[in-house]
């Protein structure tokens, strides 16, 4: 249960980091908070020849409002994002999701970008990012590109980020107006990996009608997914209990994961329906209170 041998470099700038990645290619692996990668290395499921430690790169730290987005730099600790006023005010769904990420000791070290880049199927940050149509900025020695979250996840622990790229920041669109969010998950114990997680955010107009709704479900399959049919069912309604129940039913019906050691696909569909109802009702009530 100890990591295999590896070489280690700690570049001081993003330019240096991507230069190392360009030279070493797939032999190199970025380490940020290490809360996903180090367990994989300890279990020898990951055996990188070189770790590129990006923890000391100033350009990768911090949270700022950039126009219609909240931008979170990749190496920002999850604990700092959770405590950040702008995250709570401008991306309420992310704030709620962050409270479910691991526990205090892993949030103190784990990063927002690291959670996204590792793409665990049960991870909460990616689930919230997908619901909110966030975008990821990736940088390589050749330049910078932006990846929409809908194009980001490619499978369990697989993303659109190339080996020679470094995830630099994730930008969450700020929803204006009367916005509310709900996040619910089921796990063996609080802070453990979710068997199923649901993220919802809604925006109401002045009259209380749903202007838009976002719903995503994680932990049920190899990657999180948006539930477009449920979102379409809710838009334009007053989010009555019957609207939410029908949308939750559509969400459960959309899941196509297989049985696994933690639960059957049927169990997960049932949990998805209940949690989607709770998350949507919580989001509605929160929006109505604004």
């Amino acid at each position, binding site marked *: 249960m*100890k990591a295999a041998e590896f070489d280690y470099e700690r570049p001081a700038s993003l330019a240096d980091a991507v230069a190392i990645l360009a030279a070493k290619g797939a032999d190199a692996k970025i380490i940020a908070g290490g809360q996903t990668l180090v367990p994989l290395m300890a279990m020898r499921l990951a055996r990188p020849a070189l770790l590129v430690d990006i923890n000391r790169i100033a350009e990768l730290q911090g949270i700022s409002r950039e126009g219609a987005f909240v931008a979170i730099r990749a190496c920002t600790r999850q604990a700092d994002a959770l405590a950040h006023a702008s995250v709570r005010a401008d991306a309420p769904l992310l704030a709620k999701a962050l409270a479910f990420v691991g526990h205090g000791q892993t949030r103190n*070290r784990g990063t927002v970008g690291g959670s996204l880049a590792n793409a665990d199927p049960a991870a909460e940050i990616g689930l919230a990012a997908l619901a909110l149509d966030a975008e990821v900025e990736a940088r390589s020695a050749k330049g910078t590109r932006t990846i929409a979250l809908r194009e980001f996840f490619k499978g369990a622990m697989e993303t659109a980020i190339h080996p020679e790229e470094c995830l630099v920041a994730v930008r969450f669109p700020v929803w204006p107006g009367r916005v509310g969010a709900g996040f619910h998950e089921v796990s063996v114990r609080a802070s453990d990996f979710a068997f199923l997680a649901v993220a919802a955010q809604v925006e109401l107009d002045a009259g209380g009608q749903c202007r838009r709704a976002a719903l995503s479900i994680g932990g049920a399959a190899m990657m999180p997914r948006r539930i477009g049919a449920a979102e379409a069912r809710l838009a334009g309604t007053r989010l009555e209990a019957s609207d939410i129940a029908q949308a939750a039913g559509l969400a459960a019906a959309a899941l196509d994961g297989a049985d696994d050691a933690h639960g059957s696909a049927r169990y997960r569909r049932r949990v998805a329906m209940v949690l989607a109802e709770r998350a949507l009702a919580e989001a509605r009530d929160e929006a109505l209170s604004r």
Partner: protein
Amino acid sequence: MSQHEIALTVNGRARRARVPARMSLVDFLRDELRLTGTHVGCEHGVCGACSVLMEGRPVRSCLVFAVQAEGTEIITVEGLAPDAEGLSILQDSFWELHALQCGYCTPGMLIAAHALLARNSAPSEDEIREAIGGNLCRCTGYKQIVDAVSLAARRMRGANRPEDAR
């Protein structure tokens, strides 16, 4: 495999060493510095026994490589006591309320609870349970641990609020 010179502060004392990149912080603390109060349990970030304070925040020292701790300040369970003979109020409360049986999880519990009490002088039971949520204990059922943290909080507040000191 690369070797690295590191300099860091552990329990207030400056330390220098040469470590292989793959050495975890907990192995460095125990095997190189002989600070064996920090326990190594699962070695993959599940049990919390190896928790230490890094820059004042509790982290799992099995998920940090020693080379990454270069330049940081680390506090281990040995650093919580006021001196070599005495116990902190928190440690004393653990002793008094029998908040340990085998003792394997204790250093991690103490670090997690110490960090909680540093930022919240009057935690609720839920807040205590949340703070130790990343630490596994297989003996106590957690009840005495939660009680001990609560007692320590009352005693520590008692320094300023006499009504708590009973």
